[in-house]
């Protein structure tokens, strides 16, 4: 594929941004319907982004302006770059090499890291507490999430996303590795700071958390970044656990099903306190995935 097209239009750039907004709308609409609300119209996420882009960005006194402006850009860039290695829309990734899974997972963490730094960059009390929580949460879900994505890689004997995708299309790993699937899906929710893992931006305690000081462009870019991350994350989980992504229809059906699952979890749960989140991930998430990996290794040894 032509690199310029790949970066700007598909699978990076415009296409993922649009898809991110669309998924954000589906998420908001379905959650609203689950809560007996009407929910936004289809163009609401787009309108939000346009409004934010048009607003004046207020840069507070005594922050590093370079970081303040640069972090949202880095965050969005990281998420968009991650999209290049994922089988977006059921098509082959734009770029692929042995080990791109690791790169993709790290690029996905870049968004959270940038948000944490952006919060720590300002002198706002809510932003500081929010940044602490964002980073705390990052350290708690990151290891289990990564382990959950590595389990399919073990089975497929490769670190390349496209190869795992091909392997998964003949093996529904959700059947053999249900724990990994659950941890990956819930880890994705932690990554996106969706309820019940929204302690870092709990509006009833710390306003908007790390994002408190962001108003215009910066906030728009962070939001876009989250949308992109949602698409990439759903793609990875669907490709690895739900029988691979071979066609656009496959993609829409499988990621759509995952999105619905995420919405249901969001609707049913109470926000966890930050120490409850950490406890949940380290006591249960990480442990269960490790047990699953251990079982797999034992199985390999026995059947070898």
């Amino acid at each position, binding site marked *: 594929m032509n690199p310029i097209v790949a970066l700007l239009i598909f699978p990076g750039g415009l296409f993922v941004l649009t898809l991110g907004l669309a998924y954000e709308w589906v998420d908001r609409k379905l959650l609203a319907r689950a809560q007996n609300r009407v929910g936004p119209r289809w163009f609401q996420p787009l309108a939000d982004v346009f409004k934010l882009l048009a607003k004046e960005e207020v840069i507070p*006194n005594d922050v590093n302006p370079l970081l303040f402006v640069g972090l949202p850009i880095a965050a969005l860039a990281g998420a968009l770059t991650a999209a290049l290695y994922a089988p977006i829309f059921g098509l082959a990734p734009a770029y692929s090499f042995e080990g791109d899974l690791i790169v993709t997972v790290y690029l996905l963490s870049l968004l959270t890291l940038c948000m944490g730094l952006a919060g720590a960059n300002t002198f706002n009390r809510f932003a500081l507490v929010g940044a602490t929580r964002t980073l705390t949460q990052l350290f708690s879900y990151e290891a289990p999430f990564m382990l959950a994505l590595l389990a399919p890689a073990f089975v497929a004997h490769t670190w390349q996303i496209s190869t795992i995708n091909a392997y998964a299309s003949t093996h529904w790993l959700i059947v053999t590795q249900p724990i990994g699937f659950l941890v990956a899906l819930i880890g994705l929710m932690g990554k996106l700071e969706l309820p019940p893992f929204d302690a870092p931006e709990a509006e009833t305690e710390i306003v908007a958390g790390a994002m408190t000081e962001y108003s215009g462009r910066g906030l728009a870019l962070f939001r876009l970044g989250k949308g992109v991350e949602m698409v990439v994350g759903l793609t990875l989980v669907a490709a690895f656990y739900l029988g691979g992504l071979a066609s656009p229809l496959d993609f829409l059906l499988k990621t759509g099903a995952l999105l619905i699952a995420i919405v249901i979890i969001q609707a049913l749960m109470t926000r966890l306190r930050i120490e409850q989140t950490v406890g949940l991930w380290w006591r249960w998430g990480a442990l269960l995935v490790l047990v699953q990996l251990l079982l797999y290794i034992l199985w390999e040894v026995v059947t070898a």
Partner: protein
Amino acid sequence: MKQEPQKVITKKGERFIIPIGPQHPALKEPGHFEFAVDGETVTDATVRLGYVHRGIEKGVESRNWVQNLYMLERICGICSHTHAMTYCLGVEKLAAVEVPERAQVIRLIVAELERIHSHMLWLGVAAHEAGFDTLFMYTWRDRETVMDLLELLSGNRVNYSANLLGGVKFDISPQQADKIRQGLAFLAERNTHYLDVVMNDMLLLGRIRGVGVMTRDQAEKLGAIGPTARASGVARDVRLDAPYGAYRMFKPKLILETAGDLEARFIVRLREIADSCRLINEALDNLPPGDLTVRMPRRIKEGETISRVEAPRGEAFYFIKSNGSDLPERIKVRTPTICNMGSVLALARGHQLADMPMILVGIDPCFSCNDRMITLRRPDGEAETWSWGQLCEYGIKAYQR
């Protein structure tokens, strides 16, 4: 012009303070809290009230007895009937007027509908503070039922204006009574479901069980009242301790929990909704016949009195003094929130920052109810309470400039 850098964390030992309010998404009402935190743990809490001081107590001194009814009803939007009823009870006592039985029972019915309305609103707010928005949306949807019932009776959804000095403004027809019974049946069913959710939802329990525990001793010492106190095992309910109006005929149940944590406060309020439903049904079945009003004198006899009513949040207390004219000499209002506010500050220490909104909301604060005094702060931040004389002096000086 460049401002001086704002210091957030400086020397060791200096406190990191998280301000909540008066403009804050957690509190749609204006109160200002300062929580000193060490990491996520709250080490100290202070409150500053007075943002919605509206001068109502001064205002009532220049309005006549009837006009004050409307004025006092607007102290609070949620328990407006309570305020009007407390005032009416006091003024009727001063005037030595006996309200007809039917009017008393109608007052009780409206008061209990209001209690359901208030508790369901509280349940939604508390769920929202805990981050359980689905429960919030559903309770507020169901609350519409009780608001519709109040609208059916009085024509208003918020300030019902049911009271008159010496009676009530509207009657309850058998058709209306049937509508109320239907609505209550629906609410009672939903209430059972919510009670089930509150007692069995593991994640919600993780946020409310054992949080903000107030022992019985603490509750007595801090002077907590209403459901907050009853959740700590303090048997205190004005409807039973000093029955007024129709509560002499229809007895509410005393609902007590001993745990004293947020879960207990949830359960007490939810059980009170169920009891209110029962009480209203009982009152509707035994609605005595008769007039709705008696004649009230325009001037109230000289004297002073107190009247107490169990508002949804606790005891509402009125001191009314008349000098024999058609204007009151003094009306002093004490609302339940101000009594419970002390418990928030005492309970906050040692809890997580994430629990603060929940502990605060646990007492069901109503800021427009409680703002009656002014604390002034100098720019250096020291709080200082001014006496009436100081305020007058300050006011005169301020306008001389």
